[in-house]
């Protein structure tokens, strides 16, 4: 009973040390006040762990050295602060010639973090009598903490962009072109350019991607042909975006110049594997009985596919296409040298509806890249955040549409 109270006490202390040291590592405050609290924590930790180990009757002897090591570590940290070996002026300057120095705050927080983790381990072990159950609790806590940590980071990314970017968004920002190197004005030409380029990419990639998926799933009879095409698709999927940029520079720019057309073709090629893979999944999920039923009624193969198979697989195919839109709007490297310009260029239209495909255009990603380069030199802070928010809204909005569509039909369709 007494051990239980003691280990709960040391557990709470360990948790406090863990959380506070992580916070101080990240926020990097001056540690005048909290150092005293941490010293108290260390004392409590040493006392409760050694006391509970002392009271505890069935202490497995082979675990004792580990406890001893942890207690010695806590004691060493405490003494280092107490005798002033570790004081607010201490700093490890460029150890081993590394390009960084570690000051009091960092060293102390790290030591306390380690002490907290060790204390947590020992208290759980004592609480659960060094059983497998204790191990499970420990690992599951660690996994949960990691998950929380990851989700905090990922959620923080979204929060920060929305929080900082929302102040830049207004009607003028969305409807006027940028002026004075992006310092004033808005991003209208940038949005229009991005939309046209992504549209062009979809015009190129959707028929090719969906057609390839239909061929692979419905027509290809030879295993070898199928295998070769599949390998080509997966290697195309893995080609780094910057290599696509180089390819476009060498191949397309020599023919079409730096233009909307080159950019659309490159983005279209990047999209093809995504569309093929998702469409194939969708086609695979259409049951054979539907095909056989249609064939039995005398329909030809293409009639069956166009009237029965494609409509049934439509939600899945659409999901793939929407994901393609999101992917194409988020790429920077492939279009940097092939399609874009930073100067505000309004889209020239031919016959009022078709854009002139041989002109360079503005693009959200490239615009943001340039604003980042200007950050220190010119006052583009809010404009950069605004651009990032619009970009994120565009990409995540389309992605969310795809995910919702997929989940909706996954629930609804039951063959």
């Amino acid at each position: 009973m007494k051990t239980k109270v003691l280990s709960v006490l040391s557990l709470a202390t360990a948790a406090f040390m863990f959380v506070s040291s992580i916070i101080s590592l990240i926020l990097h405050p001056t540690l005048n006040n909290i150092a005293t609290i941490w010293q108290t924590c260390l004392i409590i930790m040493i006392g409760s762990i050694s006391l509970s180990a002392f009271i505890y009757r069935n202490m497995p002897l082979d675990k004792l050295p580990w406890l001893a090591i942890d207690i010695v570590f806590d004691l060493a940290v405490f003494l280092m602060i107490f005798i002033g070996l570790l004081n607010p002026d201490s700093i490890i300057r460029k150890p081993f010639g590394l390009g960084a120095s570690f000051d009091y705050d960092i060293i102390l927080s790290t030591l306390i973090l380690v002490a907290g983790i060790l204390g947590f381990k020992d208290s759980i072990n004592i609480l659960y009598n060094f059983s497998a159950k204790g191990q499970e609790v420990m690992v599951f806590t660690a996994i949960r903490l990691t998950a929380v940590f990851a989700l905090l980071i990922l959620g923080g990314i979204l929060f920060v962009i929305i929080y900082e970017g929302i102040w830049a968004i207004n009607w003028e920002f969305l409807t006027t072109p940028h002026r004075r190197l992006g310092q004033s004005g808005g991003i209208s030409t940038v949005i229009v350019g991005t939309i046209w380029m992504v549209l062009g990419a979809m015009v190129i990639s959707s028929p090719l991607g969906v057609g390839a998926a239909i061929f692979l799933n419905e027509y290809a009879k030879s295993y070898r042909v199928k295998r070769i095409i599949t390998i080509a698709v997966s290697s195309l999927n893995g080609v780094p975006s910057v290599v696509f940029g180089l390819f476009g520079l060498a191949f397309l720019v020599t023919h079409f110049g730096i233009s909307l057309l080159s950019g659309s073709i490159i983005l279209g090629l990047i999209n093809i594997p995504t569309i093929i893979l998702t469409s194939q999944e969708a086609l695979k999920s259409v049951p054979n009985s539907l095909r056989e039923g249609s064939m039995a009624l005398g329909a030809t193969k293409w009639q069956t596919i166009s009237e029965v198979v494609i409509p049934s697989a439509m939600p899945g195919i659409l999901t793939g296409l929407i994901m393609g839109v999101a992917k194409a709007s988020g790429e920077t490297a492939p279009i940097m040298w092939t399609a874009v310009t930073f100067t505000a260029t309004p889209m020239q239209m031919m016959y009022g509806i078709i854009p002139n495909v041989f002109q360079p255009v503005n693009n959200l990603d490239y615009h943001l890249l340039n604003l980042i380069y200007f950050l220190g030199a010119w006052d583009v802070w809010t404009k950069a955040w605004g651009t990032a928010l619009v970009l994120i809204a565009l990409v995540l909005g389309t992605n969310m549409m795809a995910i919702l569509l997929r989940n909706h039909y996954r629930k609804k369709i039951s063959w």
Partner: protein
Amino acid sequence: MCPSCMGLSKTGLRRRYKEHFVETLLFLSAITSIVVMILIFYYMIHESLRAFATIGIFNLLFGQKWHPVGDIYGMLPLILAAFIVTILALIINIGVGVPLAIFLAELAGPRSRALLKPAIELLAGVPSIVYGFLGIIFLVSYLQDSYYMLTGRSILAGSILLGIMFLPYITTISEDALRAVPSEFKEGSLALGASRWQTIRYVTIPAASSGITAAIILNIGSIIGETMAVLLVVGNVARLPSPIFNIFAQGATFTSVIAGEMGEAAHGSLHYHVLFAVGFILLIVVSILNIIADLTRARIRRKFGGY
């Protein structure tokens, strides 16, 4: 008239031609990927040939200096920095991503899973330029202030950013692999008296290991090939770090050098061709990794039949 068309009416004949026409069109769209792959390889080789011929393959790959102004090109600094960045990013990636996958697959309740899974998938779509932007504003300034670095733009910053950036990918694929493990495996282990953690540790993870391995290999490819985020935070100074393990130094990877210097390289100059050579090496490395990942995946399919 072909023998097989004998006895067909006129409409039947037209139908048959239409069928053939459609099939040919679909076949052509299916081989687009092959054609594009061949074109990419052709153009990368074609444009980088001059660099290999002028400098020599060995000197280009293992030269210790990268100095475009003096037309001195050695890729060793790039290879080393890319290697360090990839390893460190992968450690962060696996250390956070795999536990997150275990959490989603084994520990999370159905409702939190229904919320978290789409959220993580959604985050996979955040453009890399946005990660670079946030990396510059938060990560670089944090490192610079906290560790008294000359500049926060460093190999370490690049590694952390890439490690976080590819979390969603490794999590989704690893989670799928963990879920694909038949529940009979787990139930058998639990029935034998193993705890939940022992089951995960000794049954689920080993059974899903090929899937997780494939996810990791794919991620290595993505990390090496990532461009914009790295370009912005890694400092883009192609110099061998001294000492060699100095992760607080500025560095330059394959991708950051290409993206950073292509804008300044005159078309047709040696610099231009060398950058293509860097891209070609990158393409080879990533392709090899992709093939390995593909083979690993094929192995799981054989092992579990359909998973």
